[in-house]
């Protein structure tokens, strides 16, 4: 059986309301509906309704096109007032078999002759545009990165895990685009003049009206004979020979570049490119999440839909692998059993006495306080570790051993990684005592883990910021920041972000190679009971997603202080894709508690958005409230990085200035945003 979908009318197969639907109100008949009612396929459906249903239908349909062509033409002419677009709704979307669709198409094409010249032209233009879109889509699918890899992952493990890898691919592309932006607008114009290419010359920033001690900036350990391992330490922590390269903010000490006739304002470009990459990331993520939002706006705990969703949309039709299908069967069974169990628990909960309720609420309060205490302890230890590390880095590094030096450099990263590892274990342990429903348990644990991961970055930056804008007034009086410890504080922040990123990558690699792989070997070759009970590592999607969101937040924050950081991030995520893929295929097993594709896509993007918004805060604060370094970077002559913008606007003609001031004033901005919203 197949039914045509007319625009605006839906006909359910079977059911008793045929007449109402088929013969719409005489008062309301849009011309398009009249036209479609004349279609042979429609007429045959009418005929079919009155006869017995079943498998005869299709055959009848084929014989039903015996209408005389003259009658058809008459009917077609009647409907000439039809708006062509309503009819040229894609034939593909009709639920007919292909021969019927072909006939419909032939009729549409025959009908074209009766349209006015303008409509005809519009139709042919629409058609060729659609063809062009199809062809470009086909070409771009060849350019799609990792198409076959993700396809095979989808077949083996279903769409939930596939969405994790698509997310990873999205981040690789995002970072690559950010890198291209930063490189072409900041690094390239700054390096070209130094080689005199393209008739360019540059004006270096000269500090005007600045205390002399603020502009001293020497990098230790690069002159003379140094131990070989110093280079390794430098490579891993961004100090020494790396510090003065274009990797970090300090290199860009150029005010203006002249390319023959054009003057390129580097500080302005630096600031504007930062805004551009942040807004680009925001827009892209919001766009992606809106697409997923439309499909997935159903709360997980929605009691009205969960069973239907599992039965009718539970089986993943993409699965082609035997193991994966067995896994899917058992996970569906597990999900249904859990749901029934949850139902039983819910009924039990409804019968709880007030005494029991009081006990549970007290327990929850106590546990939450305990969680807060633990988190505060965590943050405090991170603060102290950062302060200690910063104070001792500047000491003469040749006095320390290689390991000691490296340990000191990476101390904050180590503390963060330990916190990120221990906290989730702790959370998943205590959640059992809080007696929430299973779905809420998962969500609460996840939210807590997100909070820990992102707050750690915040605390690190806060402690750095504290050091830079020192508490003790004396040290900072001369230049507005702690110039003794941080002659170029932006580079130092960039170095910390660089270290975090490198360490994150090392950890991902080390866990895959030194933990998962031996575990797989043990489980395969050793039949010792406890090991078998432990089993293979489970591929937990939420934890993996948090890991990469954490890395991406670091990248967003760090890009302002280290313009080439996105390149490192791109390479890192590129390699992480292969590490995770190999890990998934060979050393892990997917967990039974499968995560659904729809909710997962939305969840990934929401967490990423939280990370991005978190990145705005330290960037905004440091750009506006902290004095920019007087010894390095493009903003030497400005009070803060943001000052470039008002300074440039003052150089515009007065009329333009007035307009810009008007736009920026509240009288305009607030209604404007309300209108867009």
């Amino acid at each position, binding site marked *: 059986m197949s039914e045509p979908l007319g625009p605006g009318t839906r006909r359910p197969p*079977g*059911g008793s309301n045929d007449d109402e639907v088929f013969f719409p109100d005489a008062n309301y008949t849009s011309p398009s509906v009249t036209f479609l009612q004349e279609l042979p396929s429609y007429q045959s459906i009418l005929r079919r309704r009155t006869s017995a249903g079943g498998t005869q239908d299709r055959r009848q349909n084929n014989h039903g096109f015996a209408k005389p062509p003259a009658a058809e033409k008459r009917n077609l002419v009647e409907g000439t007032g039809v708006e062509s677009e309503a009819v040229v709704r894609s*034939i593909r979307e009709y639920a007919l078999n292909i021969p019927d669709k072909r006939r419909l198409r032939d009729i549409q094409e025959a009908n074209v002759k009766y349209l006015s010249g303008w409509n005809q032209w519009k139709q042919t233009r629409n058609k060729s545009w659609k063809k062009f879109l199809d062809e470009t889509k*086909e070409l771009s699918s060849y350019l799609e990165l990792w198409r076959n890899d993700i396809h095979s992952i989808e077949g083996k493990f279903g769409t939930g895990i596939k969405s994790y890898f698509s997310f990873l691919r999205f981040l690789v592309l995002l970072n690559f685009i950010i890198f291209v932006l930063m490189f072409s607008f900041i690094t390239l114009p700054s390096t070209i003049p130094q080689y005199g290419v393209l008739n360019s010359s540059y004006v270096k920033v000269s500090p005007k009206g600045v205390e002399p001690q603020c502009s001293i900036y020497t990098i230790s350990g690069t002159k003379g004979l140094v131990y070989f391992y110093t280079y390794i330490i430098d490579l891993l922590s961004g100090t020494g020979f790396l510090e003065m390269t274009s990797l970090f903010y300090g290199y860009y000490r150029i005010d203006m570049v002249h390319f023959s006739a054009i003057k390129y304002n580097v500080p302005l470009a630096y600031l504007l490119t930062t805004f551009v990459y942040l807004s680009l990331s925001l827009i892209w993520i919001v766009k992606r999440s809106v697409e997923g939002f439309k499909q997935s706006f159903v709360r997980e705990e929605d009691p009205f*839909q969960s069973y239907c969703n599992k*039965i009718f949309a539970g*089986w993943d039709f993409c699965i082609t692998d035997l193991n994966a299908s067995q896994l899917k069967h058992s996970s569906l069974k597990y999900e249904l059993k859990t749901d029934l169990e949850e139902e039983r628990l819910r009924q039990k909960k409804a019968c709880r006495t007030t005494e029991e309720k009081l006990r549970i609420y007290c327990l929850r309060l106590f546990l939450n306080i305990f969680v807060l205490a633990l988190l505060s302890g965590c943050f405090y230890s991170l603060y102290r570790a950062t302060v200690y590390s910063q104070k001792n880095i500047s000491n003469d590094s040749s006095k320390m051993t290689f390991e000691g030096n490296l340990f000191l450099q990476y101390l904050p990263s180590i503390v963060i990684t330990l916190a990120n590892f221990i906290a989730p274990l702790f959370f998943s342990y205590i959640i059992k005592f809080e007696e929430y429903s299973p779905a809420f348990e998962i969500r609460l644990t996840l939210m807590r883990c997100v909070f820990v991961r992102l707050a750690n970055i915040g605390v690190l930056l806060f402690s750095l910021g504290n050091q830079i804008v020192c508490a003790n007034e004396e040290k900072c009086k001369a230049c507005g920041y702690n110039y003794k410890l941080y002659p170029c504080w932006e580079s130092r922040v960039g170095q910390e972000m660089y270290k975090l990123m490198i360490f994150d990558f090392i950890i991902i690699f080390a866990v895959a190679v030194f933990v998962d792989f031996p575990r797989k070997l043990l489980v395969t070759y050793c039949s010792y009971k406890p090991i078998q009970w432990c089993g293979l590592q489970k591929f937990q999607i939420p934890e993996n997603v948090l890991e990469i969101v954490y890395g991406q937040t670091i990248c967003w924050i760090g890009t302002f202080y280290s313009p080439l950081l996105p390149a490192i991030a791109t390479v890192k995520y590129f390699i992480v894709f292969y590490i995770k893929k190999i890990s998934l295929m060979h050393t892990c097993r997917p967990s039974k508690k499968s995560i659904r594709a729809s909710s997962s896509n939305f969840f990934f993007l929401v967490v990423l958005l939280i990370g991005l918004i978190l990145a705005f805060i330290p960037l905004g604060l440091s750009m506006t409230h902290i004095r920019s370094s007087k010894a390095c970077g493009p903003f030497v002559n400005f009070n803060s990085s943001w000052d470039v913008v008002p300074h440039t606007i003052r150089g515009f003609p007065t009329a333009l200035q007035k307009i810009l001031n008007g736009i920026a004033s509240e009288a305009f901005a607030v209604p404007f945003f309300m209108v867009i919203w």
Partner: protein
Amino acid sequence: MGNKQTIFTDEQLDAYQDCTFFTRKEILRLHGRYQEMAPNIVPMDYTKDPDVKLPIQLIINMPELKENPFKERIVEAFSEDGDGNLSFNDFVDMFSVLSEMAPRELKAIYAFKIYDFNTDNFICKSDLEKTLNKLTREELTAEEITLVCEKVIEEADMDGDGKLAFADFENMISKAPDFLSTFHIRI
């Protein structure tokens, strides 16, 4: 684009492009897949629209369908005679509806047909039980099956007749967040 293929006329390929969600290349590839299942029966030259049908046993052994618990129902829903014998048109139609680009409404129509095991235009309790057994490979107890079926009917049945008509089904599917991503086969 100069393509020297002689399987279809250009006009046929254009028609397929308009009637399905596939491009020319994909249609030719589909023809290759269709043909390799039974090279002796399926001709290489389709310009004359030959009337060739492949039996259901061949189709359900395709790698894309092999592990699907509803494979027989899928093939039956798209076959003209309801017995699962697919002509090339039905074959292309099936994968077109199951492709990524087909809209939700279209997929809902065919999903209803697939889950309607006794083809009476209603998804009744016995259809639900069969669906559930296929999904869990009969590993749930009878009591659990009854409970789940009752829950499903409770959730989706709007008109209160104890079974799901197409309107109920479509209404429910429009609220099911996973439907579009799971009801999709890549070929």
